[in-house]
């Protein structure tokens, strides 16, 4: 097994852990940061799967813009889930 495959497996583990974290977290701000981490790893995956156009979109929209819109929504409502 070469190093590239090991890196891909590590990224896959990171994406699953971040997804579980953002689902189970009661603090919604941390949950949003979890989804942002998913987007970072996902854009690396898109790049590795030879879809750089989608990777650019995911990096700009998924990491920055949708995260800030979620953060504004949390700021205007409540931070903790009941």
């Amino acid at each position: 097994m070469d190093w590239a495959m090991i890196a891909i497996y590590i990224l896959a583990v990171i994406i699953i852990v971040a997804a579980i974290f953002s689902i189970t977290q009661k603090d919604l701000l941390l949950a949003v940061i979890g989804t942002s981490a998913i987007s970072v790893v996902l854009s690396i995956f898109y790049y590795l799967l030879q879809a750089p156009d989608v990777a650019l979109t995911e990096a700009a929209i998924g990491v920055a813009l949708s995260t800030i819109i979620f953060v504004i929504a949390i700021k205007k409502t409540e931070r903790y889930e009941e």
Partner: protein
Amino acid sequence: MRKVTAIFVLAVIGFYMISIIATIPFGVKRDNVGQHYLKNTVKETGAVNTVTAIVVSYRGFDTLGEVTVLFLAATGLGAILFDKKSKKRRLQHASLIVRVGAHLLYPLIVLLGAYVFVHGHLTPGGGFQGGAIIATGVLLMFMSYRTFETSHKVLVYIESLAGIVFVLAGFSGLIWGNSFLQNILPAGEAGTLLSAGIIPIIYIAVGFKVGAELTGLLDNLLKTIK
């Protein structure tokens, strides 16, 4: 009377939809369109990036629809959040490190966004990606400096002008060619900046439009925070 009209309109729409669907052959193997794009894109459009050629040239009308949807979403958000008093953002200034970093990064991020949408037909990316990157850079400045302002009027003008350029590029194909959004300019030498006809013009317009729309949207949203 209204119910009769509704049933009549539904019957007309349903009749035409069924008659269109009936003409589509069912169960025939049709997977050769992707191979056609991969083989003939450079020859037909002059664009090296096949994704851009499909988005702007082969499926340009769909892109016009997408741009319209984004415009309507931004307009709807502006209408909901509209307030007669011109409000200021109430965020605090960020720390010195963040402010200096943002000041250094902001021109580079905007330059990267402009590069991405100007080179849409040569390298990965295009109008949507470039516009989103520019909006990210402006967002960084919004969050670092409370006093950083974008002129709402300039954003609206950029947005309208870019939309008009897209539609005019479409109509130029209708006037000098055969169909809406037809590529009437010469394809040029593939791989150079001035190639692929109207594809770079449309993607530059889309980049400006998306960047202005997302910036205005973020500005509207950030001003509502108490």
